């Protein structure tokens, strides 16, 4: 079966759903979104459900700042009849050595320039924010009260439902088997449910974007990295802020439902698509978190899972057109922050795909930066 579309979006995570929604909102009549499994089955639905503005490079901090502001009114904008469970009680980023203190102050300088309400907090102030924290080894932390939590399944569902109402066709359990070209230009996609001809195709497929690029002869510097997470039984509210330690490579928050979500990744692991759970993770995670937040030792773990970061060499996303293949666009390589910047990214990508001037210049996120060496190396990634 062959059909035609104005644009094809590959990937039913929050980036794909946000992009498809914005394309339809801007007037495209036939937008088709293709998802290999179910909505939010990939990196989005497996993420730590956090959102923060406290980043160390301007490109990341700006996207996060404005996306958090959009999350604040997302339910109304998308007319969602459920809750996206937004909770803004801050992120506490812990500094365990002088080098971190120095880097964090640098980050604060940048964040203040951009109007992000982050601040340095002393160990005494940390104790006020999270009374059950172990201060051993802590020099201080940075805190931004606007950072927080949002439910990835619900937020993605909100975008998907709104996109559907605007006429977007969502094909789940459909796999892209080939990208089609006419000359240099993209001309459509071949899927397990038939061919769709389209002059515009965007990959929002996370780490799998590398494989999609290879289908049209483009080598994108995106690498999958397994990150694992666990969740505990729900309990009464105990902790407001997300607690994050770059020293331990971990983060931990109590979600509105009551459970504690915590996760980590191993940067030395082989870069493949493995998303199995390991028992080593449970022990490592438990050891680290019961050092930082000892009271959690009495909480029971009910489930663990894993997902893939789509990492780039500078840990900053790749956004924009692929110059060698006109009509082919990429929004991937989010390096662990795709969920929290999706509202702005979807809007920017729709603008760029439709040939409009994007709200912010996005050339700096282009894939060509890896040739020119104009990198934005993000220091604040867990």
């Amino acid at each position, binding site marked *: 079966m062959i059909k035609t579309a104005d644009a094809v979006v590959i990937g039913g995570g929050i980036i794909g759903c946000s992009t498809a929604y914005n394309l339809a909102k801007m007037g495209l009549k036939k937008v088709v979104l293709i998802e290999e499994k179910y909505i939010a089955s990939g990196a989005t639905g497996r993420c730590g459900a956090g959102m923060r503005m406290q980043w160390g490079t301007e490109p990341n901090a700006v996207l996060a700042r404005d996306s958090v502001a959009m999350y604040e009114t997302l339910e109304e904008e998308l007319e969602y009849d459920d809750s996206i469970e937004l909770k803004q009680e801050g992120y506490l980023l812990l500094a365990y050595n002088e080098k971190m203190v120095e880097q964090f102050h640098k980050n604060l300088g940048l964040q203040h320039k951009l109007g992000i309400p982050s601040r340095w907090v002393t160990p005494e102030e940390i104790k006020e924010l999270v009374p059950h924290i172990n201060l051993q080894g802590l020099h201080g932390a940075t805190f931004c009260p606007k950072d927080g939590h949002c439910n990835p399944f619900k937020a993605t569902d909100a975008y998907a439902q709104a996109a559907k109402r605007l006429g977007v066709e969502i094909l789940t359990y459909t796999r892209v088997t080939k990208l089609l070209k006419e000359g240099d230009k993209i001309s459509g996609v071949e899927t397990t449910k038939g061919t769709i001809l389209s002059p515009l195709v965007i990959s929002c497929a996370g780490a799998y974007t590398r494989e999609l690029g290879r289908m049209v002869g483009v080598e994108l510097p995106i690498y999958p990295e397994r990150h694992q997470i666990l969740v*505990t039984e729900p309990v009464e509210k105990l902790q407001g802020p997300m607690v994050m330690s770059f020293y331990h490579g971990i983060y931990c928050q109590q979600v509105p439902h009551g459970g504690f979500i915590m996760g980590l990744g191993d940067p030395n692991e082989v870069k493949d698509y493995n998303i199995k759970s390991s028992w080593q993770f449970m*022990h490592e995670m438990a050891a680290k978190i019961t050092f930082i937040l000892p009271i959690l030792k009495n*909480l029971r773990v*009910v489930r*663990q899972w894993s997902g893939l970061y789509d990492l780039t060499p500078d840990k900053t996303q790749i956004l924009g057109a692929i110059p060698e293949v006109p009509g082919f666009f990429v929004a991937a390589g989010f390096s662990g922050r795709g969920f929290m910047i999706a509202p702005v990214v979807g809007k920017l990508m729709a603008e760029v795909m439709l040939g409009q001037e994007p709200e912010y210049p996005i050339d700096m996120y282009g894939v060509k930066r890896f040739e020119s060496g104009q990198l934005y190396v993000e220091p604040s990634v867990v």
Partner: protein
Amino acid sequence: MSGCGCKTKDNKDVNIICRCEDITLEEIRAYIYDKGITDLEQLRRLLRVGMGPCQGRTCTPLIVREIAAATKEPVSDVPLTTFRPPTTPVKLGVLAGGDDND
């Protein structure tokens, strides 16, 4: 299905299917029939069924039966979700080990 004696605020009978997360048969049917969601993966993520301490041991077979009835497929054809460790809830302190763990 016979009632379990549970009532809503306006005194309607309800049947609690997911005991960990307190989700009723009526809520599940609303998602299946009104919203058209017959994918167990999606129901889990939107309703939290099977996400609690028992990890779906009680509710999963019941929900699968509801999905099968709605899609008119055999129960054996309804795809299940991934079973994830641990098999039973374990305290973080036990997993972390320590001096007094022997």
